[in-house]
């Protein structure tokens, strides 16, 4: 079935936020910090004020002092007293054109007094480390308490460290290793952009590159002391999200600038700004300890992750422990200790990215599983076979899923893999990796169904189409359940004023959420009065945990003279229930795997000195079409899904296991264990050299 938005996108007629212009609109640009950590001594805006086209110039003194944030409210509109990362907004210019605003912003002179900076969690947690925030406990929503390590935002633990330590001390086999992962950007094509039109406290309109409009209006309202219900987030087309477009971005600032100047304000980031000042994935330092008995059965495990949250913690994933970076969802672990520390550093603030925490944690855990197999002396697949959960068992965090299909998925993957010949002179290796995640639907969305002439249906949804094909899936589900031909259903995105709620696109639950609201809609449709529009909503605060397994097998070749890595094939075995749209489903499998390949082998913000290296997407490398390996998909059907539609998650399933599958395959081929991402040719080359 073709996509709802295919023709518009293919012909370039989709209108993105950057394409909109309002009457009397002015443009904002910001001066950004060039220092990782410094006290602001003075800001000279006089030259900027004299530049052509400039309407007004703002510093922290001119805008609200109330910060914004999600769980933790710590992010200022403009840096106040000091800057905490390279790229932080220091001052804003409003001018008649974008060029004039950017030109004037470059004329702003800031005098800084440099301060010692911290760039990694280890540095930030070291005794005597410089404080990124002087009183982190004082922010609204802060989890940190006075007396905690100064840069600790949140420490989430699960289980007893003492009990695990004791069990590990007497285990027959133990592995204990340290893994590190780099910062990576979501890599959406459309940079963040915002238009804000403040008319009065009763009427504010915002066009924002966001997939979570209802959440954004709450945060903007709180920051600017405006009733969130008076803030209308307009429907938009999103040019990619991958988790990066859930924060309010520059909406609080643009709304404040509109309030101060009386004009609609537009701000579109240059991609260099998006790379240095948006909300990329957390770099992580993860310690994994696993103990097993003589047969390789896990007796205890510990995962401790220090996550680099950057200079502000407002949009680091706010879920309580166990965080995705320290989860062991697939294996039987009698004693489990997990600890996730989110830590302030003088680097770009972090946010969500496809399966937050899991790509980092799964790289560490699944690498450690292979390291354990080696010391136990059994095949990596056999180790997993002996430890995968079966239906009825609780996972390491005591969560019961409705069923576990890890073993079936593992066997399906092993049966489907066909060895591939490496190029002559190259080393060959194979690596396996397992990942599973629950979908709890916790549906929270709404729809309006309006019968229109000629037996057609107009369906309004507040859910933003992020580019995944979600509106197409919605149309298909409605067509199936209401008995319409899909082409007779029109899907229309609407504003936050038009419908009561939506939780935003995320957590692999869009299709599940739609399934729940479509069930409600189908019942309401049967019982409606003739030709009347109906509005339906769901707002669940709990749900069953339906788990979904992915088993990946990577086949790789390594050139021993250069360390060059070729992925010969990446096999994805996925545990599936009903599939609504096979093409969109496959796109999530392959797209997710490609994102994993980039994380595993290539992408790197490389901000060791606090400065993101790349200035554009030409320099910041994502896998291109030429870099994508051959994929093979094995679907393991028959799983229990959610709702009448019987659906499960897929969007975040194939990204997390890739790095370990490749690291394990590299080990299989070279006997070199790479514990630091990305796995580059040079790292393999150095490791091979170290063996000699």
């Amino acid at each position, binding site marked *: 079935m073709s996509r709802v938005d295919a023709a518009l996108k293919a012909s370039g007629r989709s209108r993105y936020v950057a394409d909109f212009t309002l009457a009397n609109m002015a443009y904002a640009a910001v001066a950004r910090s060039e220092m990782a950590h410094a006290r602001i001594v003075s800001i000279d805006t006089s030259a900027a004020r004299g530049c052509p086209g400039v309407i007004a110039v703002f510093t922290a003194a001119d805008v609200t002092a109330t910060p914004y944030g999600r769980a933790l409210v710590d992010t200022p509109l403009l840096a106040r007293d000091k800057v905490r990362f390279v790229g932080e907004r220091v001052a804003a210019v409003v001018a008649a054109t974008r060029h004039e605003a950017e030109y004037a912003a470059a004329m702003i002179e800031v005098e800084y007094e440099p301060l010692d900076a911290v760039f990694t969690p280890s540095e930030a947690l070291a005794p005597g480390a410089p404080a990124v925030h002087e009183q982190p406990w004082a922010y609204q929503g802060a989890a940190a308490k006075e007396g905690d390590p100064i840069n600790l935002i949140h420490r989430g633990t699960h289980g007893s460290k003492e009990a695990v330590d004791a069990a590990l001390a007497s285990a027959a086999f133990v592995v204990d290793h340290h893994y590190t992962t780099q910062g990576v950007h979501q890599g959406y094509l459309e940079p963040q952009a915002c238009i804000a039109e403040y008319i009065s406290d009763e009427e504010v309109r915002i066009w924002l590159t966001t997939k979570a409009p209802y959440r954004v209006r709450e945060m903007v309202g709180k920051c600017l002391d405006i009733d969130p219900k008076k803030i209308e987030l307009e429907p938009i087309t999103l040019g990619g999200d991958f988790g990066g477009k859930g924060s309010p971005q520059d909406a609080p600032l643009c709304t404040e600038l509109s309030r101060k100047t009386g004009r609609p304000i537009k701000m579109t980031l240059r991609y260099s700004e998006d790379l240095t000042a948006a909300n990329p994935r957390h770099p992580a330092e993860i310690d994994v300890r696993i103990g097993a008995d003589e047969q390789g059965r896990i007796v205890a495990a510990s995962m401790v992750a220090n996550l680099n949250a950057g200079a502000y913690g407002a949009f680091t994933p706010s879920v309580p422990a166990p965080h995705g970076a320290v989860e062991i969802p697939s294996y039987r672990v009698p004693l489990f200790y997990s600890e996730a520390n989110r830590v302030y550093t003088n680097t770009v603030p972090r946010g969500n990215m496809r399966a937050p925490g899991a790509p980092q944690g799964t790289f560490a855990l699944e690498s450690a599983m292979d390291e354990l197999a080696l010391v136990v002396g059994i095949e990596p697949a056999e180790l997993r076979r002996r430890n995968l959960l079966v239906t009825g068992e609780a996972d390491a965090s005591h969560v019961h899923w409705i069923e576990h299909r890890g073993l079936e998925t593992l066997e399906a993957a092993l049966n489907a893999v066909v060895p591939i010949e490496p190029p002559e002179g190259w080393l060959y290796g194979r690596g396996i990796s397992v990942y599973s995640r629950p979908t709890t639907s916790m549906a929270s969305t709404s729809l309006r169904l309006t019968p229109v002439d000629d037996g057609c249906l107009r369906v309004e949804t507040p859910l933003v189409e992020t580019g995944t094909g979600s509106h197409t899936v919605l149309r298909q589900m409605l067509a199936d359940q209401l008995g319409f031909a899909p082409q007779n259903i029109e899907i229309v995105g609407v504003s936050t004023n038009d419908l009561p709620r939506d939780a935003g696109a995320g957590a692999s639950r869009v299709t599940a959420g739609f399934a729940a609201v479509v069930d409600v809609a189908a019942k309401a449709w049967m019982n409606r009065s003739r030709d009347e529009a109906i509005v339906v909503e769901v707002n669940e605060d709990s749900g069953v945990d339906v788990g979904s397994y992915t088993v990946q097998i990577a086949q790789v070749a390594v050139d021993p003279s*250069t360390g060059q890595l070729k992925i010969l094939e990446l096999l994805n075995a996925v545990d599936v229930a009903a599939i609504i749209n096979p093409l969109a489903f496959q796109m999530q499998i392959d797209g997710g795997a490609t994102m994993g390949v980039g994380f595993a082998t*290539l992408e790197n913000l490389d901000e060791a000195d606090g400065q993101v290296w790349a200035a554009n997407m030409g320099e910041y*490398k994502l896998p291109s079409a030429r870099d994508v390996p051959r994929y093979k998909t094995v679907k393991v059907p028959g799983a229990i899904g959610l709702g009448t539609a019987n659906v499960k998650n897929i969007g975040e399933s194939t990204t997390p296991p890739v790095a370990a599958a490749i690291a394990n395959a590299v080990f299989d081929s070279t006997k070199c264990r790479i514990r630091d991402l990305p796995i580059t040719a040079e790292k393999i*080359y150095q490791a091979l050299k170290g063996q000699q």
Partner: protein
Amino acid sequence: MLISSPTSVEGALEELGNENTLAVGGGTSIALMLKNRLIEPDRLVLLNKVPTLSGIDERTSATVRIGATSTLLELMHSPLVNAALPMLSFASSRVGNPRVRSVATIGGAIIHGDPRQDLPPVLLSLGATAHIVGPSGERDVPLSEFFLGFMESAAGEDELVTEVTVPRVAGQRTHYTRFTPGSEDDYPTVGVAIAMTLDSEGTVRDARIALGGVDSTAILATEAAALLVGHRPSDELIAAAGQSAAEGANPSDDQRGSESYKRAMVDVWTRRTISACLAG
């Protein structure tokens, strides 16, 4: 910013006499530098309307003349370049993507002087010469004397490269390797271009080895090439040439690799590229 499109070399030179003015071939590099505000010229002079700057033909039976505004797409598809200089066609086909190749020019590739690009080492190894025209006359500069430093060339700001001439050598063996262990859509970590001729006994008569991405300009590994001349290269000799090329390189750390890794890769890929040439 003023933009002009002169239709003759004289007209273009007149425009270039203005302050802070840049000549534009395909504009693929200049557009990026403008966007990133690395340059802020007052004037751009577009060269694509100057007919005498285009075209690819046989100057003599021993020389191929390539007009400065010839695009990489033209280099890919020109029967003459494919027959006489297949390495140049191949290297052109590996640059960027179709949109870039359809406008990027050979003149731009050398005048831009970016050592990471593919055409500078390829043209260096082929022994190409740039023809430069300026207010004070014209001259021929071999590419071995053309690249003066990072993005710095022998052509003055008020001068134009009008054409590149490349010797056509019967029986010449060539091979270009672009080593991209990260993304294939990236500049090479190391580029190695080799042109050599052998006599009927397999003895190397002439050889030029050029390296990209490992110094502030594309460079010739002259000593490495000299080791091969007069010999039927053994594995030991090839290894010595690789080592010599690596010692002569002056790479720096960046996203594509550390200084030491790049140096080691110059060794590996020089050896492999020599072997590829010898294998025909």
